[in-house]
């Protein structure tokens, strides 16, 4: 579902959207939506890395697969997965095993 949202956008960003639309043979509106989507994805991945949202939920919000989201996180250098504290517990378990 989509909704109309009035928004004031800086002229420089609009110019950038114009350039992107020409580069990618799309509309300026589509380019702006891409900018917005990209920012939303990065924000959700950061929430995932902080343990505030799960990767499965983030994938649902973005209509993306977990595969693709893991790939995006890797490309953006965002660390997903367990926290340091949780990893230490795992590490202790690993130590006990070795």
């Amino acid at each position, binding site marked *: 579902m989509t909704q109309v949202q009035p928004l004031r956008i800086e002229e420089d960003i609009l110019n950038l959207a114009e350039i992107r639309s020409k580069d990618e043979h799309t509309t300026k509106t589509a380019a702006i939506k891409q900018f917005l989507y990209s920012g939303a994805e990065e924000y959700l991945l950061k929430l995932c890395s902080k343990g505030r949202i799960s990767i499965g939920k983030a994938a649902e919000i973005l209509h993306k697969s977990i595969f693709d989201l893991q790939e995006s996180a890797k490309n953006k250098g965002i660390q997903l997965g*367990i926290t340091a504290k949780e990893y230490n517990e795992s590490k202790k378990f690993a130590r006990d095993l070795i």
Partner: protein
Amino acid sequence: MISDATALICLSKINNLDILKRVYSVVIIPPAVKNEVLLEEKEGYSSIKNAIESGWINVIEPKEIIALGLGAGENQAISLAKERKDKIILDDALAVKAANAFDIPIVRTTTVIFTALNKKIINKKQALSLLNRLIENGYYISTKDYAVLVSKLG
């Protein structure tokens, strides 16, 4: 052993899904996890499909799904683990917290590797190779923790 999508995705990406079979014999997943991992255009599609068809990855629907505010696969996997009083392979930080709230025993993908090592299914060199390939494919381990693990495997 129950699994959510991450372990299956990470292990199938490095062509080592069968380590789960060798360690646990059978892995149970709920339908939502099946939907998340069985994507024709993605790596590991054939190995996951074969595993489901041959039955060592068994798809079972939870009788009741607890709404935990997670993704559908995570919700169903944790619900199934609670219902069957089974362990679960989870790597997602928030899903781990949710499972902890129900006192569900948690195993991580890296722990699967060390369990395989402990059971002498793989040797230290193979364990290190698997660990490295997981990291190369986006599985996160901090540099410091990685160093500790590597020193143990060296």
